[in-house]
């Protein structure tokens, strides 16, 4: 594990999703807060890193897609859906899209997505019993911490995307 600041190889996800390009006034405004830009992208990359054990990257992308649907944030929903390895005809994906978590046969996935649902839609509704369904479903404490950080980050990311989209539209950029 490294603690040096993440180096970013890919394009900035927020700029990409909102359509912020160099030369726009909004690009200038956003990049005056470059530390926030880098730490937002760095968080995204750290949270989706294959180095995080106990929660597969595909599980995290599925969480991202479901969280974006619930928020809702269409741009993020599309972003995560396009990276899933199960397409829309898949039964599991269909069940999640219908928000019928109780019908999911896999207890681990059910516990993970019920936790997502609570945190995204009504964060006050979560309690100790809900949290403890995750270790009961086989998740280690580091995996639970990674999951909680990922869901909480998705709440941040959705509001950032929506806020910037609104600012861009309002300013006619």
């Amino acid at each position, binding site marked *: 594990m490294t603690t040096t600041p993440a180096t970013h190889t890919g394009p900035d996800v927020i700029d990409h999703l909102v359509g912020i390009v160099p030369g726009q006034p909004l690009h200038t405004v956003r990049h005056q807060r470059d530390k926030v830009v880098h730490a937002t992208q760095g968080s995204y990359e*750290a949270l989706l890193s294959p180095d995080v054990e106990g929660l597969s990257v595909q599980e995290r992308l599925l969480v991202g897609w479901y969280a974006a649907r619930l928020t809702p944030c269409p741009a993020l929903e599309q972003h995560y859906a396009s990276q899933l390895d199960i397409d829309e005809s898949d039964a599991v994906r269909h069940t999640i899209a219908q928000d019928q978590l109780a019908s999911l046969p896999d207890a681990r996935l059910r516990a993970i997505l019920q936790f997502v649902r609570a945190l995204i839609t009504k964060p006050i509704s979560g309690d100790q019993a809900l949290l403890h369904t995750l270790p009961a479903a086989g998740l280690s404490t580091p995996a639970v911490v990674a999951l909680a950080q990922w869901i909480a980050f998705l709440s941040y990311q959705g509001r950032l995307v929506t806020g910037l989209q609104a600012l861009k539209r309002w300013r006619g950029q």
Partner: protein
Amino acid sequence: MSTLLESHGFTNATLGWKAWLDTVQLDQATPAQMQVLESSHPQAKVSDYYLLLVHQARILEQRSTAFNAIMYAPGGLSRAERELASTVVSRVNGCVYCASVHAQRFEQLAKRQDVIAQVFEDQATAGTNARERAIVAFSIELTLQPNDIPDSSLQRLADAGLSDAEILDLIHAIAIFAWANRLMLNLGEPVFPAS
């Protein structure tokens, strides 16, 4: 001077927080975990919150960098106004712990607590002037309806004197508390001082 506020379960008193899962023990922390604790918060080594999150040190490091850059960077929206937005978001989400911490920070920066008392009483009508009311309304809106921010909400902020850079800072402050509240509410609970 700050007087004790208590309303609808919210308070500006100093609260503790305890984790619902096992935390990293300092004598077993790796050098990398120690480094991230030291750069995250002055009290991180004695805080259940940071000792739990440091199970994922790289994630915590990035999250702390984002948080500190959003809340403490110079220029733009005043730090007190960022703390006001944080307190409103925490009030809306029901995060008593976060609301107490950021109510105190607002009071320390602004040297007053009138608007915090209003937020605790009823955030929907809070704000001692048009600028504060616009900030409060936008904080509620982006927290509860993140899918739909009408032009009129941004125009109200601009009419109240916020520049685009200040609006960006406000969006950041609201969004980072969507993140912080969810961790504080779902990984542990506040501890109230013995009365």
